[in-house]
Structures are given as structure tokens and as C-alpha cells.
């Protein structure tokens, strides 16, 4: 198989399989998680829940008092690479074209130089969080294979995408094919790893905030 046929495979059969597994896995997991339910809470709430769930959804994004100083890298780098990923995925014209093809939705993109710069910053901060994870004894102790795998699955698409647009390491055709393949791996594993947080994050936060309020700790 030459480079062009490999690229065509990842653009057709590979993409079809990856999106199929992604959709199947995501729906499966979300149905399973949200249908689990909880036992009815018979206790009288200590506090009316009010908007506690909603508040928690946002408050969890702000470091609690003292925590920023203790783990500045986690907060800053965490923010930077998440925003970077969102910019790259949703504001690069070529990606918007794909989203438009798949969903019919489209919006204006940003110049590629801006996306390039964002990719460099994102890659650098992702490397930083990896170094931090390995260097900090507590983080290292808590890390499992899945944590490193999730990091690699996220890092590879950004890296190969950048290398492809800059014509580094391999020819554009090979690198573009590897880029699309790495995204397909990400799509396949996303529903079955902690990366499912892209869907469950807000629901979980709301649930915790609401439950905490009922137990007497409103926010």
C-alpha cells in the first residue's frame, strides 16, 4: 500500500470504523452511566439544593484557596492545553470542513499561523504536564497505564497534525495519513477510557454539587 492509498484508507474505511466505534461506545457508556441511578434519598435534605449543582459545574474549574500555589502547573498547563485543543479542533478550517461534512454545521476558522502557534503551545504544555506527572511522587503513585495512554492518545494527533502541516519527519501524505489514523485511535478509545470525561464532566459536577448541597454543603 503506498502513501496515497493509505491516506485514502484512513479517510474512508478507517474513518468509518473509528466513528462507528466512537458513536457506539459513547452511546453505550452514557446510557449505562445515566441509567444506573441512585437509591432514593429518604433523608430530609439539610439544605435545599438550589443552584448548587450548577454552581459546582463552574466552581470546580477554579482552584480552591491555596491549591493554585501548591499545584500551579496543573492549573495553568491544564487550562492552556484544554483551550489549545479546543482551538485546534474546532477553529482550524480543515477541521471545520470535516465537521461540516459529518454534521452540516460550520463556522469561520482562524488563520493557519494562529493554529500553528496554538499547536506548539499545546504540545509544550502537554509535555509539561507529563513531566509533572512523572516527577511528582504523589502523582506518579496515583498514575496508571490508562493515564499515560490517555495522554499519548491526545498528544499524538496534535503532534502528527503539526508535523504534517510543517512537512517535518515524513512527507505530507504519510504524515497526514498518520495524523488521521491517530485521531481515529483517539475516537476508538475515547468512550472506554477516562477520556469519556468530555461528555460526563458537566453531569458529574452537577450531580456532586447537588448531592453536597442536600447533605448540607451548598455552594
Amino acid at each position, binding site marked *: 500500500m503506498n502513501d496515497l492509498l493509505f491516506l485514502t484508507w484512513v479517510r474512508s474505511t478507517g474513518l*468509518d470504523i473509528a466513528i462507528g466505534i466512537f458513536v457506539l461506545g459513547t452511546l453505550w457508556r452514557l446510557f449505562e452511566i445515566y441509567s444506573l441511578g441512585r437509591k432514593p434519598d429518604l433523608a430530609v435534605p439539610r439544605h435545599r439544593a438550589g443552584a448548587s449543582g450548577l454552581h459546582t459545574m463552574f466552581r470546580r474549574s477554579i482552584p480552591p484557596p491555596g491549591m493554585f500555589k501548591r499545584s500551579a502547573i496543573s492549573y495553568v498547563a491544564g487550562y492552556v492545553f484544554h483551550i489549545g485543543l479546543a482551538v485546534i479542533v474546532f477553529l482550524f478550517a480543515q477541521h471545520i470542513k470535516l465537521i461540516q461534512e459529518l454534521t452540516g454545521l460550520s463556522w469561520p476558522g482562524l488563520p493557519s499561523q494562529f493554529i500553528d502557534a496554538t499547536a506548539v503551545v499545546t504540545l509544550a504544555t502537554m509535555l509539561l504536564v507529563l513531566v509533572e506527572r512523572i516527577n511528582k511522587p504523589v502523582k506518579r503513585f496515583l498514575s496508571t497505564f490508562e493515564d499515560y495512554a490517555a495522554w499519548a492518545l491526545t498528544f499524538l494527533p496534535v503532534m502528527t497534525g503539526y508535523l504534517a502541516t510543517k512537512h517535518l519527519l515524513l512527507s505530507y*501524505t504519510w504524515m497526514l495519513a498518520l495524523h488521521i489514523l491517530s485521531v481515529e485511535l483517539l475516537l476508538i478509545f475515547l468512550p472506554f477510557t477516562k477520556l469519556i470525561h468530555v461528555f460526563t464532566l458537566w453531569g458529574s459536577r452537577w450531580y456532586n454539587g447537588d448531592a453536597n448541597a442536600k447533605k448540607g454543603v451548598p455552594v
Partner: protein
Amino acid sequence: MMDHETPGHETLGERLAQQGISRRTFLKFCTAMATLMALPPGTATAIAEVLIKAKRPSVIWLSFQECTGCTESLTRSHSPTLESLIFDMISLDYHHTLQAASGYGAEKSREDAMQKFFGKYLLVVDGSIPIKDNGIYSTIAGRTNLDLLQEAAKGAAAIIAVGSCAAFGGIPNAKPNPTGAVAVSDIIKDKPIINISGCPPIPVVITGVLAHYLTFGELPELDDLGRPKSFYGETIHDRCYRRPFYDQGKFAKSFDDEGARNGWCLFELGCKGPTTHNACATTKWNGGTSFPIESGHGCLGCSEPHFWDAGSFYSALSMPASPLKLATGAVVAGAAAGIAVSIANRVKKGAAKSAHQKATIADLEK
């Protein structure tokens, strides 16, 4: 200096003099060739000195499964051009489209040239070679292309595969490839082969390669697909004059919208410039008039192997190459799996609940 002088042919200088081509015109040609092939500035004079004394080599041109577009490209280029000089540089001893002779006479001229210049002639091939069912799908004078190629290759100094069909199998090789069409390099393994791909290839690339061969007696530096690096070293996209619009994110969304009228990038309309190696954007076509993207249509990627099987010409490289088939099934299967697991979980919970035995005071006092 070339080592393939062919007795019986006059030198190129004599030939040019006969045709009244001035030294000035010839030097301009040599300079253009040196520039195109990215050779050092002084090389132009060296090329001129060698070429003027060079005996015109015998060239046998075999056309197999092809559309004659490659020959058209070469002969119909704007005249008088550098490309027209190619026929003054070589002695074209067999080309069944261009030669006056036909039938046995034509075949005899090929056989004579092959015999007389054995080991010295250049073999040019356009068109793919069908090998399925012993190659019966394309024959000339009752002989299969496969047979003719194998025979002619034996005495060739080098083989130039002109066009994507000869270089990579091209359109006849596209799925489902009913004739088992293959490239020259799939059959001939013991001769130097240079691939000048394109559908059709750029005339000046053919001329450039010939000039290089005549001057240095060897083929120019080739890429991993056997194409001369000086012409196929960069992509159309890298040299495209619309590239700044790509970088700015300005794309034509249809062939007649404002973006198209403003000359914006054609990526979203399916341009394959980023994955296509060729010199169209620099050498251009029709006497330097334009190239496809300049005329408002995206690059088809015709100089790459399997370009015909690489998805629609009109789907962008970041778009699916074929419609997704599994997505709808995946929605249904995913929802079904989720619901099934939910039910299983609830049944399990229910079973645990009903199996639960309440402890009584009596139990605790045991």
C-alpha cells in the same frame, strides 16, 4: 560526457545548423534546462558544449495501454518552444503515432533500430502494460505489449516511462483493473528507469530529463518513486500562488462563489495540491500560460500513483474519501447495547434487593 554515441547519426550541432537555429537560441535553451533542473549557473555552458557535439541517440518510443495524451502533450506544446528542440536532440526511430510508416515497414524500423543501436538506444514508454491472461488485452502487430517491452528493454541503455500509466499503471490500473495493468518498473528490473509521471506529464520535464541524460550520460537524481527530484521534489501546494489564502483560511466554497472569483484557495473544493508532487505550479502549461489551479480548478493529483483510486476529486483531503456506512448502525447498536446493559444492571440490583434479608433484633441477639 555521454558514452552512448550512436554511429550513423549527425551531431546535434549539425542538425541545429541545418534547421537555422542560432547559437543564441540554443544557449537560451541550455540555460533554461540548467535552471529548471536546479543545476549551478555555469552548467548551462557545459550543457551547450556537450550537446552541440553530441550524436543524436536513437530513441524507440513504445505506446501501450494509453490515450496518446502524453504524445499530444509533447507535440502540441506551444511552438516554437524548447520542447520542439527535443526532436532535434534525438533520432526518433520508432513512434507509431508520429511515424509515416505503417504495418510491416513500421515494425521493421523498430527492429532495425534495436539491432543497430543495441545497448545504446533510449526506450521511451507511454501507457501501462496489461499482464492478465498473458497480456492479450493490448497487442501491436499481433504481439502483446508485455512481449514488445521485454524485447525492447533488453537492448535499451535506459528506459523513460512517460506519463502516469507507464510510471505507475495509471488509469488502466485503477480498480478493478480488468486487464491487470502494471507499470514498466513492475516488469523490467535490470535497467535504469526514470518515471516522468503526470496525466499528461509536463513537456519540459521530458526535455529536461533528455538534456540531462545527453549531457551527463546518466539519469538525474530520482525520488523514491523514480521521478527526477528537480521537478517532483516539491508539492503543487508548496509552490501554489494561492497558498497565502490557504494560510489565511480563505477558501472558495463553490466554483462560482465570491471566494472563487477572488482567487482563494481551492482546498475545500477537493484540490489535491498538498499531496501531489509535480512542477505544474512553476513551469506551468501551454507555453507558460497557466496551470489547472490558475484556471480555477483544483489539482487532481495526476502525477501520484493510484490518484484515480484516492477518493473523489471534489472531496477535500480532510473530508471522508467515501460516505460513512457504519454511523447509523452504530447509533442503533450503541443505544441498544446501553439499554441492554442498563436493564441487566437493574435486574441485578432488583435481585440483590429481593435477596436481601432484613436483620431482626433476634438475629442480633444470637
